[in-house]
């Protein structure tokens, strides 16, 4: 890893306990339990390049989560950091209503990079807000009432974005949400055709479903969606919040298929891992431009702030100058091949390897393996998160600045983690044969409890014997 091997003064166990107590009292107790159960209770310090150091253990870790794809340019990238610092020395957030040279410069640069005739832009505050804006734009411009989304889709947590989410896990307690959303299985063009109605304003889709567990839309599927939209007078919205800015091996994932959506939402990595920003790009077609021109204030936003735009402009400069999408493509292919080999050697653990570019996922045979593997990986210095939305899938989204040596190291550590898991597995697999126990093991609550219990015992033993948890 780029950062110095000598860790900063580690946080003492007492300090960490105090921090956790504060976090549990003032933020969330359940979250701490959940993170501890999966050995994800690391305290990020010395955040540099492809990783960080856990302040509590002093262990250097690769960041394979990247805050769900926010760190494409790497942690604390000097070029981006300097751009933000320079902006912050001169400017505050600016007035959302007013314009400034840096807002225009960033908007122009993004539009220049955008595919096809996506010549128009709106700023948003974050990913969810960009989706809210896109949904309003589609409904407002067409005057229609319905939107088709996909099963397991993930588009955000605010009202309309959540309404487009295709997973009960996030929606359940918040219903009823915005009506008019139809959900069809991802990758099934026929289902999409059947769902399309005269009153359908748009299809909203991630070209690669991320949170759902890394499912790549094939070029044929995405082209089919484009044709369907053209035939039925529907708008095509691509949510490229996770896939944008080089992650999949192209600047934008839509370039793989050559499909130009009508509306595209962008966030996460646009902020360089430092400062919130987001944007909605849309095509220069009267249907959309007429609406926006007539309703200039239909979506006002705190995005597009001056420091945000200075940061995002630097991100675009850095990615294009280093052609980072090419690195994502080659390193992604290497990683995928290595993981496929690992799968061939471990068919009882890994069911499938999926992904494109540096957006790669492993699917385990059983859901309960997700937290187990997170634990094994953490011990080997790999921070990777399984999602509550799909615990059987581990997502690997390393900063796309990763170099050859780091990637080899990462692969070696993943292999070691799988090896470790094998020793624990016989017992769990035995239990998995009993349907009732499998259901139990696959329940998130039971996992949190069970792995939390293992964790407490482990912590207790290491305290007694003073072995610490420094491995790797």
């Amino acid at each position, binding site marked *: 890893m780029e950062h110095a091997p000598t860790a900063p003064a580690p946080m003492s166990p007492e300090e960490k306990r105090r921090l956790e107590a504060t976090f549990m009292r003032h933020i969330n107790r359940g*979250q701490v339990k959940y993170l501890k159960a999966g050995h994800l209770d690391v305290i990020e310090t010395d*955040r540099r390049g492809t990783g960080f150091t856990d302040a509590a253990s002093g262990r250097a870790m690769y960041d394979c989560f990247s805050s769900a794809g926010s760190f494409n340019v790497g942690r604390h990238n000097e070029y981006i950091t300097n751009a933000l610092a320079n902006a912050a020395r001169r400017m505050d957030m600016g007035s959302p209503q007013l314009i400034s040279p840096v807002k*225009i410069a960033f908007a122009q640069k993004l539009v220049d990079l955008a595919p096809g005739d996506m010549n128009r832009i709106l700023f948003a505050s974050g990913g969810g807000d960009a989706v809210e804006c896109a949904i309003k734009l589609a409904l407002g411009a067409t005057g229609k009432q319905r939107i088709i989304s996909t099963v397991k889709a993930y588009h955000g947590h605010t009202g309309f974005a959540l309404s487009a989410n295709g997973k009960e896990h996030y929606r359940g307690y918040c219903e009823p949400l915005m*009506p008019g959303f139809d959900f069809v299985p991802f990758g099934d063009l026929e289902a999409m055709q059947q769902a399309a109605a005269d009153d359908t304003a748009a299809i909203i889709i991630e070209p690669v479903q991320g949170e759902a567990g890394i499912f790549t839309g094939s070029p044929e599927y995405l082209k089919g969606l484009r044709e369907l939209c053209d035939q039925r007078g529907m708008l095509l919205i691509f949510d490229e919040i996770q896939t944008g800015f080089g992650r999949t091996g192209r600047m934008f994932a839509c370039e793989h298929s050559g499909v130009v959506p009508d509306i595209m939402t962008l966030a996460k990595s646009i*902020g360089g891992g430092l400062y*919130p920003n987001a944007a909605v790009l849309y095509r220069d077609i009267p249907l959309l431009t007429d609406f926006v021109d007539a*309703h200039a204030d239909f979506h*006002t936003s705190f995005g597009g702030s001056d420091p945000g735009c200075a940061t995002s402009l630097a991100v675009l400069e850095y990615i294009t100058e280093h052609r980072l999408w090419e690195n994502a493509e080659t390193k992604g292919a290497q990683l995928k091949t290595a993981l496929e080999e690992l799968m061939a050697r471990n068919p009882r653990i890994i069911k499938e390897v999926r992904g494109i570019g540096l957006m790669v996922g492993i699917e385990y045979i059983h859901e309960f393996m997700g937290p187990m593997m997170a634990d094994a990986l953490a011990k080997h210095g790999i921070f990777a998160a399984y999602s509550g939305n799909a615990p059987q899938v581990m997502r690997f989204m390393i900063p796309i600045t990763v170099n050859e040596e780091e990637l080899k190291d990462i692969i070696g550590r993943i292999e070691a983690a799988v090896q470790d898991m094998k020793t624990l597995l016989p017992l769990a697999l035995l239990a998995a044969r009993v349907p009732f126990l499998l259901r139990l093991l696959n329940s998130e609550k039971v996992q949190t409890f069970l792995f939390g219990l293992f964790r407490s015992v482990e912590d207790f033993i290491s305290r007694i014997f003073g072995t610490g948890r420094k491995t790797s």
Partner: protein
Amino acid sequence: MTSDTTLFEQYARLFGPGHLAQLQSLGHDIIEARREGAWVFDSEGRQYLDCLGGEGSYNLGRHQPQVAGELCRQLEETDQGNFPMISVEKARLAQRLAAFAGNGLECSIFGVMRGETLDCACKVARGVTGRSRLLAFEGGWYGETGFAMSLSRRRDANLYGTMIPDTGTIPVNDIEAARAAIDNTCAAVIVELMQAEHHCRAADPAYLKELADLCREAGALLIVDETQTGFGRCGRKLAFETAGIAPDMLLLGEALGGGMFPIAVTMLTQRVNAFLNEHPMIHLSTFGGSDLGCTVAIKALELYEELKPWEQAAHSGTMLKEELEQLVSRTPLLSVSGEGLLLSLEFADEDRAREVCRAARQHGILATVGRVRRNCVVLRPSLLITAGDVEFLLTGLSSALQDIA
């Protein structure tokens, strides 16, 4: 000037001519260059007293040097962080906020902007109570996100299909209407103590107290939206603190980031947060609770506590309001409303209000129209505005009103 013209043309190409027309109709067609204290400077060095207030971000003034300095310093130490993680930055800010808000509002869920804080509160309210009905004060403007929009009064509300179901409004200051509406199907009632976008309409304290009682009796949560009124804007640290009510949730907006970082927060009591402890991570925000943002907000909170800008805001606001009231009847100004440094000026119609904004700009003042009552001009200057600035504002507004008379 050529470069400015080019920028405006570029703006119109990228964002649409409608956006540029909007700027022009409000006299906002300036390039925002240097910012300092209560002031903004354009690319030609002309200065304007900023009454836009970044929609409620600049309570501490423009480009507050200590907050800006903290952002630069913390950039060396930290970054956004992985959003689900435990971090020193998040824990510290949450702890400080609990002390700042008091009233048992001990827990924080971070977001980026006001709409997100409201949507989060609505979702939590539904989860906690197992009920779906959400009620808000009528005539409010709560943000751009789904729940916020569904509860707001917007002239374009019918353009976006069907809003989120089981959302409704109650008329402000009508306790009988509240009694009829709030029953045991109601998850929460969302109130703003002063509706900034509605000619600064204030909720009566006695009414609020009764409303809070109705909520408690019905088992509905009381959500207080202070994204516009908080952090001293109305001449008190938090507007609700003199109302004698105890919110179950409190929304604090962009002023939390001291104008240097977009951050906002939904605060909850332990009783309400118990639901999220049971169901952690069902509401997420990648940018909310950014570690870097938390450090900036901690610095801003320190400044709020140290400078107590509400004291100055109360004083300047009273003076300003009294003087502005002198202009009613002598000029097109119909009425003045508001408290502290959240003031609203009423005119005959929207065109007139926009004309006032354009005229004010000619006298070095930037202001905008209300989003709900669009015939009003809202003033939201820095809370640390000096006596000289207040004088400038009065003279400028007075001249602007005479210009259009």
